[in-house]
């Protein structure tokens, strides 16, 4: 069986409102939405709430998603004054390239005295952090509330 694929690059698609995993799509009561972009399998939403900047990442984090992920996380760290929470609850796949982006973001945050906290609950995603030894590097919580309370 032979499959030859020549498929157009996935186009970015904008949609009317953000989706927050686990809350049925409701927007947070406080905080300001900066931007929403959706690329079929990958999306980043951001809002801040005073001292906490909150980045919600969804979909598959791979080599294709890495440049956008890097740009958005670094921009959030650069304008933050307090902690940055990276919510990975909606992430269904993560590879070494995306892990490299998170490591780079952590280094950038450390340089600026920003506390970077990850939120991961899915067992298959936690497994990747464990087998790469990155549970030692990152502060990882199971819920956003837990990460916010640190």
């Amino acid at each position, binding site marked *: *069986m*032979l*499959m*030859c*694929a*020549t*498929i157009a*690059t*996935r186009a970015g698609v904008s949609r009317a409102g953000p989706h927050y995993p686990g809350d049925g799509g409701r927007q947070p009561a406080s905080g300001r939405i900066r931007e929403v972009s959706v690329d079929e*399998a990958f999306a980043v939403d951001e809002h801040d709430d005073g001292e906490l900047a909150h980045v919600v990442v969804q979909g*598959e984090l*791979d*080599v*294709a998603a*890495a440049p956008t992920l890097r740009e958005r996380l670094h921009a959030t760290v650069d304008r933050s004054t307090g902690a940055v929470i990276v919510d990975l609850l909606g992430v269904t*796949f993560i*590879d*070494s*390239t995306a*892990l*490299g*982006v998170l*490591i*780079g973001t952590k*280094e950038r945050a450390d340089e600026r005295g920003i506390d970077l906290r990850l939120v991961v609950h899915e067992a*298959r995603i936690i497994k*990747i952090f464990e*087998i*790469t*030894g990155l549970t030692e590097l990152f502060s990882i919580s199971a819920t956003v509330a837990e990460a916010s309370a640190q």
Partner: protein
Amino acid sequence: MTVAGDGNGEVRTMSEPVELCIPVQSDLIVLARLTAATVASRAGFDVEKVDDLRLAVDELCVLVADGGTAGRLNLRFLTDGDVVEVICALDGPGGEEGRTDEHGEHELSIRILDALVDEHGDEFDDGQRRGWLRKRSVRHQPS
């Protein structure tokens, strides 16, 4: 699908290989993952091992492409009994500067492959970069 003996009285089921060729574009590696998941599922892998193979094939593609953006990745998926073997070869120049390794991404790939598959390797032969991996549906414990 063909059936073959392994010399020990066991009969193995060998499926026709599945071949996939994709341009070296980061957003097309998802097709390799989809194919890996389909092949693993057909081979009887459970959900966790399907996920393992999907990620392992992604890492294999990224390692073989080595930061390149030209040429093609030729993937071959073989099922032999409870083993899935994947061979990935780069038909093209690869990246001039190689894959970024600023944060140890290469080492992360190797750790992931070490943990998720039974065997893996890579070689550079006849000007062609090639990587391979093998994964069983049931991991054999060393005796």
